[in-house]
């Protein structure tokens, strides 16, 4: 134990002062008594002439000296070194993604992270300013630079695991902003490492990553799809991934409206993915649930991805107009979609196209009339329209994905596709690129080959090249890409997707007849939300619970959609021991030499207790007299006889 302010010990000079004042206390009041005969006998042994004896039984003096001793000790600020963090500014980033609910650390990773955070906060310096960031599906700043550690503990206790992944980029940038001007700052990241990290980060002070979690054993349902089967039944298609390092036996069971409909035993090799097809589920089922059940000594630490829901609603058929000079590939591809009545229009009829669910304009665009109502797919447009501008052609573009994980490119492999030429269309403001090609002549260095977006209340997709000028129709990618595009352009159930990732927004173009006040969404836990509606577009972002949501457009019109954790990034729960962010030296050790733990509060409290005791002792005769009077007043027997 050492002292922060040892100069306070000079105050010990007051101790003899108290003693001397006691010895010199001459202010004795004189009192005449009948005789000092008895008093003299009494004080013979304590006779005041021996000063030290006068102090012998003086409880008050003892208490006063004790009080002073404790006060001096408190003022000297004793402290002990503890393990912990010595920084004055500490930012805690706690990962609350779905993988943090894994139970490989008892009870869950998030609870373990909370415990660790509690311990670290306790070890902090009393004046340390703490910031707490909840890094879940969205980043929330819970405590901003507060030295009220009690509040921090409460906020840590209130952290709840999310159902989605976690993007640490925002959290780390927030931490960087908070620590930017602090001389002695530390950022502590409590996570299992299954997060999205920024490529580069400039953070001031120390960044400590405390990995949480021990094991990555987990099996997950990564996909569940429903398709109409033969004879009115439904076919469920599920994919199960084993993330463990050994083979695991599992059983997948399909429930149609909570009734067990089919079950399959799987033997999953390590790191493998296995598809399961469950045909002939009852066609009347409102919802189909797939559950991963134990079928042997399997270890699965994450429960959130062992369950998936899907719904099937046939919905109303969507009409399609294909305006084309004749394209066998497109016609064949369209004919494969059940329930998609196609009207073919020759180039001559392009000036008077009817309104349709969506219209495919293959190499032709109307010149005099406006574009037909409904969603639009342009393929190899030759001239500009009101939505985009054609500035020229591009020879032999090499296609590549604009971003990973784009939903339209799901299961689409773009490698090895050759394109003869493409229209050069700069990306309009309303669109997002899906497939791009390098173009040195463009200021951005690339030009989109496929872009999509919503404009004027409709969905528009533009494929910049004529598919007949490429070998795309001969590739496996073509039917998949085309199917994805049709799904996007002709959402079978009025645009409500069958499944969403947790946290992903539901966007929906509402029919003009929709009564916006009546639209509600019932969440899996039974609560009801009113989604935001702007310009006939519904945007709903609170898809943070796993399960089935019900969207009520009106009394007759209702749709269901499921939110499933189909996120390999979250299901891959094996903890990462080191994180790589370029530009940041990352330590994985909690600070060794911790903040000094001060004891003055306890000492001051004891001093206060001693002072109270001193006061009570000083007033003891008065208090005991008071007590006697009160008890006498309460006791009727004493009252009767009078009190002496």
């Amino acid at each position, binding site marked *: 134990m050492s002292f922060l302010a040892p100069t306070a010990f000079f105050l010990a000079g007051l101790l003899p002062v108290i003693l001397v004042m006691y010895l010199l*206390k001459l*202010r*004795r*009041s*004189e*009192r*005449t*008594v*009948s*005789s*000092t*005969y*008895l*008093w*003299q*006998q*009494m*004080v013979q042994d*304590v006779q*005041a002439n021996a000063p030290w004896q*006068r102090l012998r*039984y*003086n409880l008050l003096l003892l208490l006063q000296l004790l009080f002073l001793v404790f006060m001096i000790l408190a003022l000297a600020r004793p402290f002990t070194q503890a393990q912990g963090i010595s920084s004055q500014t500490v930012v805690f980033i706690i990962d609350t993604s779905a993988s943090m609910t894994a139970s490989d650390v008892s009870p869950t990773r998030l609870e373990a992270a909370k415990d660790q955070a509690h311990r670290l906060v306790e070890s902090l310096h009393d004046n340390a300013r703490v910031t707490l960031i909840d890094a879940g599906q969205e980043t929330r700043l819970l405590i901003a630079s507060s030295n009220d550690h009690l509040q921090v503990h409460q906020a840590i206790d209130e952290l709840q695991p999310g159902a989605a992944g976690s993007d640490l980029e925002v959290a780390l940038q927030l931490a960087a902003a908070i620590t930017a001007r602090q001389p002695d700052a530390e950022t502590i990241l409590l996570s299992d490492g299954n997060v999205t990290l920024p490529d580069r980060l400039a953070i001031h002070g120390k960044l400590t990553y405390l990995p949480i979690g021990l094991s990555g054993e987990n099996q997950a349902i990564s996909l569940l799809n429903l398709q109409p089967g033969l004879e009115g039944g439904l076919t469920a298609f599920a994919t199960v991934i084993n993330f463990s390092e050994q083979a695991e036996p599992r059983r997948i069971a399909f429930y149609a409206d909570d009734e067990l409909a089919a079950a399959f035993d799987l033997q999953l090799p390590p790191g493998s993915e296995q598809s399961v097809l469950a045909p002939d589920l009852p066609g009347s089922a409102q919802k189909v649930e797939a559950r991963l059940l134990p079928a042997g000594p399997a270890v699965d630490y994450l429960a959130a991805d062992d369950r998936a829901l899907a719904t099937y609603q046939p919905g109303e058929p969507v009409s399609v107009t294909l305006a084309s000079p004749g394209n066998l590939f497109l016609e064949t591809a369209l004919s494969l979609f059940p329930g998609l009545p196609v009207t073919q229009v020759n180039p001559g009829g392009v000036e008077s196209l009817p309104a349709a669910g969506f219209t495919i304009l293959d190499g032709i665009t109307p010149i005099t009339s406006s574009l037909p109502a409904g969603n639009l797919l342009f393929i190899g447009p030759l001239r500009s329209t009101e939505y985009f501008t054609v500035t020229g052609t591009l020879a032999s573009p090499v296609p590549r994905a604009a971003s990973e994980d784009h939903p339209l490119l799901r299961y689409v492999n773009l490698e090895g596709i050759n394109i003869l030429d493409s229209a050069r269309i700069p990306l309009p403001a309303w669109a997002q690129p899906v497939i791009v090609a390098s173009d040195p002549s463009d200021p951005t260095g690339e030009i989109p080959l496929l872009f999509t977006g919503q404009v004027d209340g409709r969905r528009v997709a533009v494929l910049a090249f004529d598919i007949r000028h490429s070998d795309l129709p001969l590739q496996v990618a073509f039917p998949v890409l085309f199917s994805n595009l049709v799904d996007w352009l002709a959402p079978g159930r009025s645009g409500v997707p069958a499944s969403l990732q947790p946290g992903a927004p539901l966007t929906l173009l509402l029919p003009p007849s929709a009564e916006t006040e009546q639209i509600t969404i019932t969440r899996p836990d039974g609560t009801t939300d009113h989604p935001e509606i702007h310009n006939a577009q519904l945007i709903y972002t609170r898809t943070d619970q796993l399960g089935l949501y019900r969207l009520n457009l009106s009394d007759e019109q209702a749709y269901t959609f499921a939110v499933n954790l189909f996120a390999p990034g979250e299901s891959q729960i094996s903890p990462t021991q080191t994180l790589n962010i370029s530009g940041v030296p990352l330590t994985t050790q909690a600070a060794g030499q911790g903040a000094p733990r001060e004891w003055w509060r306890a000492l001051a409290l004891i001093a206060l207790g001693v002072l109270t005791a001193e006061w009570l002792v000083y007033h*003891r*005769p008065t208090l*005991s007299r008071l007590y006697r009077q009160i008890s006498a007043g309460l006791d009727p027997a004493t009252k009767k006889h009078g009190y002496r």
Partner: protein
Amino acid sequence: MDWGEPNKLEFAARLAAALGFVALASLDRVTATVLGINGPAVRRHLPSVRGKRSALSLFEFLGALIHEEVGPALSQNPGAPAAALGAYGATTHQPGAVLLFSDLLDNGWQPALNRLAGRGFEVSVLHILSLDELKPELEGDFRLIDSETEQSVELTANFDTLRRYKDVLADWQASWRTFCIARNMHYLSIDTSQTLEKLLFSDLPQQGVLR
């Protein structure tokens, strides 16, 4: 003795008057002597009287103790009253009943009483103390000054001191009781808040002072 509320001297005089009257009524000779008074203001001795008619002179003698200012006349010598008692015993020829009314807050009483008992006197010690002597209420640091000798004692009065004072007082009273019983004397500790009736009709007969 001139102290306390009710006053010890006054209480002693009243008790003496009552007991004196009882004696006179039963045709006994009664004398009264005030011990430890120097000055001329008060008569120190009432010569032997007898019969109810003499009661007035006894009352007059005792009344003077109460109504006249005796304070300055009191002896400054702590041993003086006891010495006076010894002198009384030595000069009285016929031994009889002696009733000593005193607070006994002096030295020298026991040798004088021994001598009286030795000469065949039937001694009764009526030990009179006032309430502030029996239950002093003090709190704080005091210099206590003796009202008679002006000697002083310094002490810090607190719970402990008062408890020890009571112990000393109890021991002292007990030692007096032992002393008296051992010499076939009557001893009665009296506190001035007691009523004369209770003393005369209960306590004194019980102790054998009155028969």
